[in-house]
């Protein structure tokens, strides 16, 4: 009988221990009297280190708030789910293109009052980076590490193909011509080297229309994915897979590794030109040191010189998810990052440019990316675009990616694919706007 009792007790103790061990919050104790806030961020490696430096600086600068930073993969989805579940972090490092969809769901806290109190205004920023944080008249985030895009090219490969290594293509027609010269096949006909391919790295597949003067919506309530400009853009995309063979390209591309690795096709010299963000320079230094490369504004269609210097701008952002426990302290940290000192510390570490209008001379002088001015100039010059600020953007973006796939793989014509996107997304947008008006009407 006794032994049975002991067994039962042991079982209960075990379960109790497990329970305690499990529910123990992994948050450090706040015995120091400071408010501890959690901050989820996507960055790892040296990008994470740069943010860590800023966080350390903030934690040292005062003794009331302590920021604990956690690296989270798929941070946007995890943050949305955690906020929906009522347990969000206090600060989340997402991407600007999450803002419209998340703000529309009330997943993010509007920052207007905080900004007013802190005296932070649009004038402090390169305007496009302030604007991408706004949705429906409210500010929902501040930028952290912004980026514009530029064409990067491998000078050694240019030389080998008999091209002037100092002269990047200026028009899309030139880009096509260079690609012909830079593409190689092995004796069995397999592609082993490409000049340029629109499907790589594939992060802005929705955006090609903008380089041809297109847009994805009219700014109010109409989806314009099937505009003639967009159709032309995706015909241009498809011309590459027609010319070099969809199957050949697929096979070539199936060997591509994760982009942040030495086997990345640009870093390993298998693709000569790529449209990429300001960070690529770091990865070249890290994984392919010694590569000779250049960066320049993206080429434009020869018949439309007015589209020169068009660039996509976006940014990593800092925001406060709805339901955060310590929003005031969270904003204090965000404001610290957005000081000139914070921004230059972060973006020098990450080797990007500062989103602020004012930049110290040392920042530019010390910047390891020799082409940093190219990125700042295209961002400032004003022919910038970013993702449409639509409540349905998460879905719309995925829809555009799928349309890109089927165009690239030559399953449909661009016209068919884009009109099907337009039809489906227009229905979605109509529904979202209808529900919004009903919601507001019922308030």
């Amino acid at each position, binding site marked *: 009988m006794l032994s049975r009792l002991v067994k039962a007790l042991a079982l209960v103790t*075990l379960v109790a221990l*497990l329970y305690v061990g499990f*529910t123990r919050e992994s948050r450090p104790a706040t015995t120091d009297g400071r408010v501890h806030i959690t901050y989820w961020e996507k960055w790892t490696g040296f990008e*994470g280190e740069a943010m860590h430096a800023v966080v350390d600086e903030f934690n040292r600068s005062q003794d009331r708030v302590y920021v604990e930073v956690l690296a989270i*993969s798929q941070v946007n989805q995890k943050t949305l789910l*955690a906020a*929906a*579940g*009522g347990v969000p972090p206090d600060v989340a490092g997402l991407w600007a293109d999450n803002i419209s969809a998340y703000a529309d769901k009330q997943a993010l806290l509007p920052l207007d009052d905080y900004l007013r109190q802190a005296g932070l205004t649009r004038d402090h920023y390169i305007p496009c980076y302030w604007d991408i944080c706004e949705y429906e008249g409210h500010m929902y985030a501040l930028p952290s590490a912004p980026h514009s895009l530029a064409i990067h090219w491998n000078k050694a490969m240019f030389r080998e193909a008999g091209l002037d290594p100092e002269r990047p293509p200026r028009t899309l027609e030139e880009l096509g011509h260079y690609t012909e010269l830079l593409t190689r096949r092995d004796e069995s006909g397999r592609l082993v080297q490409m000049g340029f391919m629109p499907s790589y790295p594939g992060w802005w597949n929705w955006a090609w229309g903008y380089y041809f003067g297109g847009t994805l919506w009219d700014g109010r309530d109409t989806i314009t994915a099937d505009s003639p400009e967009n159709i032309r853009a995706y015909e241009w995309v498809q011309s590459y897979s027609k010319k070099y063979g969809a199957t050949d390209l697929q096979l070539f591309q199936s060997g591509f*590794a994760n982009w942040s690795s030495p086997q990345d096709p640009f870093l390993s010299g298998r693709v000569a030109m790529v449209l990429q963000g300001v960070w690529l320079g770091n990865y070249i230094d890290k994984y392919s040191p010694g590569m000779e490369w250049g960066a320049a504004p993206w080429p434009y269609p020869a018949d439309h010189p007015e589209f020169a210097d068009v660039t996509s701008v976006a940014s990593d952002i800092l925001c406060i998810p709805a339901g955060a426990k310590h929003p005031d302290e969270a904003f204090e940290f965000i404001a610290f990052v957005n000081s000139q000192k914070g921004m230059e510390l972060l973006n020098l570490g990450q080797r990007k440019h500062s989103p602020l209008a004012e930049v110290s001379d040392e920042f530019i002088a010390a910047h390891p990316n020799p082409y940093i001015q190219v990125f700042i100039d295209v961002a400032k010059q004003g022919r910038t675009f970013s993702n449409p600020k639509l409540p349905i953007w998460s879905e719309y973006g995925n829809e555009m990616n799928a349309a890109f796939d089927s165009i690239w793989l030559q399953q449909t014509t661009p016209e068919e694919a884009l009109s099907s996107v337009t039809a489906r997304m227009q229905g979605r947008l109509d529904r979202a706007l209808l529900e919004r008006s009903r919601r507001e009407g019922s308030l």
Partner: protein
Amino acid sequence: MKARHPLSRAIVYILLLGGSFLFLFPLFWMISTSLKPVEETMALPPRWIPSSWQPDNYWKAVTHGSEILGYTPFLEYGKNTVLLCVLVVVGALISNSLIAYGFARLRWPGRDVLFGVTLATMMIPFPILMVPMFSLFRHLGWIGTFRPLWIPAWFGSAFNIFLLRQFFLTIPRELSDAAVVDGCSEFQVFRHIIVPLSKPALAVVALFQFLFTWNDFLGPLIYLTDQRMFTLSLGLQFYQSQHGGTEWHLLMAAATIIVLPVIILFFFTQRTFIQGVAVTGIKG
């Protein structure tokens, strides 16, 4: 149906050997890749056996990239998963055996109706429950904790109740009647007569429940938010999404780490296991 003719026996063995090769090869390939140096994973034509064994791939995989923040805490994930499995298995054993006893050996009004409802709920696909469960756990403040993943197990599940009830029904009533005459309470009958006789069935419940928890992906994906609290399955997916496409040797090492405990467990419990699977099929 026996194959007697020598020719047909030969064909049977050829098919069995060929099939065995096909079924084992992926596992072999996983282990082989996990022990290779990185250059060899990309060798063409592929090398079957690593030219130099790299057992520290395993160590690298579990402590990977300890450079700041790039770290995948597999040891932590392993601990989380084991604890979760223990909680779920203990809960499932206690609750389901009690419940099944109530259904199998006691008479009370509404029993058969409730049992019918219980069986019917086995038809309900998880997606139906997914959204309301999420909002329920949100109200309870359980999102981002392990609770959604183990507390429900302590309240029984239709399949286990069914399995145990069928087994309890096969235990002769005379045994428990005699005990009742001797003055045993229902709980004592359950504890001292039914449970000891039902070890094989309880083992099946424990095994299935363990496997389910070890493998579960969708539950942790929805309910766990903090990366340090991931389970092995979720951790492996995270690892793959971060390092996929390059470090196949480490990825295969991580996969092997998740597969191996299950296979070892299987070898130790093979009989129970195979019987359990067979029984679920025949009784169902």
